[in-house]
């Protein structure tokens, strides 16, 4: 093969999709790019930009209802479009392999891991089983998996999500493919888990010189791993460039928009002039909750939250931050009354809210509304938008006839949706539109407090940013308070007045918004903040060893019952103290409280005031 030719060439690719009415339309239009041997190229774009469709076409595959209608696809010496069905079988998993977003869905839950990892080597008869298994163990080691010699004997549910994603990479690399396609491989992972997975991917790609096509919507992640970036929108290439220059000086307007959305602007309401001491709107004290009935001591069998205290002031926004499983959604459910607390109290305007939904008055229910993450499941697919919005208006305010119709129209306008959408069912709306309807339904009750559970997490960056703008505007106009739950620190920093950081059901830090910016902070907050990929190349390689160790330590078993849940991962733990005594509530000068045995000075000494990476370089 000619050394000057790139390994992979896609030339004027065109993919058509057939919609419900049988019309064909272009979802990928005239896309051309190349990947050199050993190069990592990223396809970046929002959902619907055609990035996965393009990635799949390199496998000679088009999803149901789609077809590759034109253009050339070459991988190595193979013209993918000219291959027969048998030829494609030889290509897939052998020459080109694919790593999907959800490792949990890509593994067969009823088979052990090793046979699945080496399956493609067996199918293509590349090596005997023993050799394949030995090679897989080598890959496990290279991917920094724990227990590389024995992990293959486990079942998929017995390893963590980050480990499963790396095992999926081993599966893709077992045949030494010419090209590996990674489709959003870290999107479903928590930030601290993402670090070790990204580092493992990068180390293996560098060591083996694997040619990689990396599909993602996250510019900051791509900045760490890609040599070149292809920016896509609506199935067409907007800009192709080397990572550094493209991030530093984006030429295309859309790339600039993406960069702007990745570093969200602060949407602060002007500080509310506090006339005298207004009593807090919501006060939560000593809250303990969980699932699975109560044991002899009155504690839930599976505790999820322990001794949570906080207040929300009228008109302010509390951000609740933490990784999956930390109890943030459970907190919203307890406040909304969907899950009765085992201990502790929730009071609204000084009036205690009964723990159970049935014991709350209609007025109490009206004043606290919950907005769920997935608008797909939070809106009844059988009802039209008008009906969805009408119900709370009828139920709480007794509106009917013309007044009802006017109020529905006003609500749709408030969330910036055209009135004609009212006649559509949720299934006919886009993700962002659905989330707006979801919000409008909560607004219909005219609540005092809205509990937002990850309302922007399922949306694209640009769409999510628009929803945040909407929330900020609504807050100014309607004097609303929010509890804003998110795993995304930058979103919380952009929108919230106060933040609460949860780790394994314990409130490790609570303070003003700047608590997330200023050190010292709780060791876990520090880990979380420094785990967010930064929009510059070299961030991933510059993470300090202490943070790496913290990031790769998993949550301890029964962490919520330990004196300090973060003890096993903490880089500054004190043996004999942290694992035996409950940490004190320690006020910090920046205006926050943390649960930690370490003093402010000790923490400040351990945490660099600058991003850790800068010091290492």
């Amino acid at each position, binding site marked *: 093969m000619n050394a000057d030719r790139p390994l992979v060439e896609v030339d004027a690719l065109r993919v058509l999709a057939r919609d419900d*009415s049988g019309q064909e339309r272009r979802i990928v239009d005239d896309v051309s790019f190349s990947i050199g041997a050993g190069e990592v190229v990223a396809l970046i774009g929002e959902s619907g930009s055609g990035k996965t469709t393009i990635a799949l076409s390199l496998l000679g595959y088009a999803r149901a209802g789609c077809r590759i209608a034109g253009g050339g696809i070459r991988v190595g010496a193979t013209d993918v479009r000219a291959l027969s069905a048998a030829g494609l079988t030889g290509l897939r998993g052998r020459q080109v392999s694919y790593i999907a977003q959800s490792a949990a869905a890509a593994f067969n839950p009823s088979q052990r891991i090793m046979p699945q990892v080496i399956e493609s080597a067996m199918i293509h008869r590349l090596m005997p089983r023993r050799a394949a298994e030995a090679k897989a163990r080598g890959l496990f080691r290279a991917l920094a998996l724990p227990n590389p010699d024995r992990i293959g004997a486990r079942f998929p549910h017995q390893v963590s999500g980050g480990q499963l994603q790396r095992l999926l990479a081993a599966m893709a690399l077992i045949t030494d493919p010419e090209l590996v396609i990674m489709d959003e491989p870290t999107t479903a992972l928590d930030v601290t888990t993402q670090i070790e997975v990204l580092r493992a991917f990068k180390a293996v790609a560098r060591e083996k010189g694997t040619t990689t096509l990396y599909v993602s919507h996250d510019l900051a992640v791509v900045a760490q791993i890609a040599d070149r970036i292809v920016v896509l929108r609506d199935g067409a290439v907007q800009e192709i460039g080397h990572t550094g220059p493209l991030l530093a000086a984006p030429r295309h307007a859309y790339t600039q928009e993406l960069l702007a959305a990745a570093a969200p602007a602060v949407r602060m309401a002007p500080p509310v002039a506090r006339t005298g001491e207004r009593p807090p709107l919501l006060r939560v004290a000593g809250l303990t909750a969980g699932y699975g009935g109560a044991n002899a001591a009155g504690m839930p069998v599976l505790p999820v939250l322990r001794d949570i205290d906080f207040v929300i002031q009228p008109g302010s926004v509390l951000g609740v931050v933490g990784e999956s499983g930390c109890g943030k959604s459970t907190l919203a459910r307890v406040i*909304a009354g969907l899950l009765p607390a085992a201990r502790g109290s929730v009071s609204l305007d000084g009036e205690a809210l009964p723990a159970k*939904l049935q014991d709350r008055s*209609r007025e109490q*229910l009206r004043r606290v509304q919950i907005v769920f993450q997935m608008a797909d*499941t*939070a809106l009844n697919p059988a009802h039209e938008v008008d009906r969805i919005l009408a119900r709370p208006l009828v139920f709480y305010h007794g509106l009917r006839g013309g007044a009802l119709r006017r109020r529905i129209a006003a609500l749709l306008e408030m969330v910036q949706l055209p009135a004609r959408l009212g006649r559509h069912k949720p299934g006919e709306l*886009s993700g*962002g539109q659905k989330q707006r309807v979801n919000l409008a339904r909560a607004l219909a009750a005219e609540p005092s407090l809205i509990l937002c559970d990850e309302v922007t997490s399922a949306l694209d960056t640009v769409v999510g940013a628009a929803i945040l703008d909407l929330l900020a505007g609504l807050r100014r106009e309607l004097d609303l308070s929010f509890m804003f739950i998110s795993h995304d620190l930058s979103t919380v920093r952009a929108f919230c007045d106060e933040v609460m950081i949860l780790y394994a059901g314990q409130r490790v830090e609570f303070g003003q918004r700047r608590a997330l910016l200023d050190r010292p902070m709780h060791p876990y907050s520090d880990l979380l903040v420094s785990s967010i990929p930064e929009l510059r190349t070299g961030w991933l390689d510059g993470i300090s060893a202490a943070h790496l160790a913290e990031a790769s330590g998993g949550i301890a078993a029964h962490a919520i019952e330990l004196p300090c849940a973060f003890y096993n991962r903490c880089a500054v733990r004190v043996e004999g103290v942290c694992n035996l005594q409950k940490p004190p509530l320690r006020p910090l000068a920046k205006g926050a409280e943390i649960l930690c045995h370490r003093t402010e000075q000790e923490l400040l000494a351990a945490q660099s005031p600058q991003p850790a990476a800068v010091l290492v370089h």
Partner: protein
Amino acid sequence: MSVPLRATLPPRRFRISVTGAIGLALVVFWLAVTAVGPMLAPYPPGRIVGTDVLGPMTHAFPLGTDYLGRDMLSRILVGGRYTISIAFVATFLACFSACTLALAAAVKGGWVDAVLSRLLDALISIPSLLFGLVVVAALGSSIPILVLTAAVIYMPGAYRTARALAVNVNAMDFVRVAQARGEGAWYVMRAEIMPNMVLPVLTDFGLRFVFVVLLLSGLSFLGLGVQPPDADLGSLVRENLQGLVFGAPAVIMPAAAIASITIGVNLLIDNLPTRRVSRER
């Protein structure tokens, strides 16, 4: 800020496949028979009009004559009404009560669910034909008894299906939203859950309808169904069974009628529009 809008969707027409159209035609035909069939009958169904027993198809008797020389066409037109109306009412009762109980079990959960499910599990373990035999033998055969017996026999199965559907829908966030709003159990059952299980429940309705037709035909075949001189399709098969050896239309035609009802209903159900191609109003 721009809100991306999908272009207004083209009005979707109600499309149905060829097999679905055949099913629809058969169902419409049998519904018409139920409605006006007896008025079209050329002879009174109980009168002996032919000289020939188990006679062939002729101009005078388009479907032949039965074992006593009665006109088969007239008897099928009347018998079809019995079979279809009894089966429809029985299936409706079974499915309606099953859905109501299933929704209650899914929404209330806990002991309501446990008690309902175990009771109906006990009922489902009784062989259906045997149960029918015992009830009819004890209470005598009348149309209300037949309807109730069939409804009771098929209710537990319909409950199982409906409960499985309702539990799935009940796990969705929009049900949590309704509960957090303070809605009562009845509203949640009726307005939030039921609309999302209508199609599978209709499919189940069609299947049960076919089972009830077959059960009624079976009971009639054993002589416990609709009593002479009236006859449903099952009894028509039974009373003319001796004609089988001559290949008489008197036994083939009612059997074909039962087959065409069940096949028609099944074809129609299998081709019901799914939610993705929901009709636009």
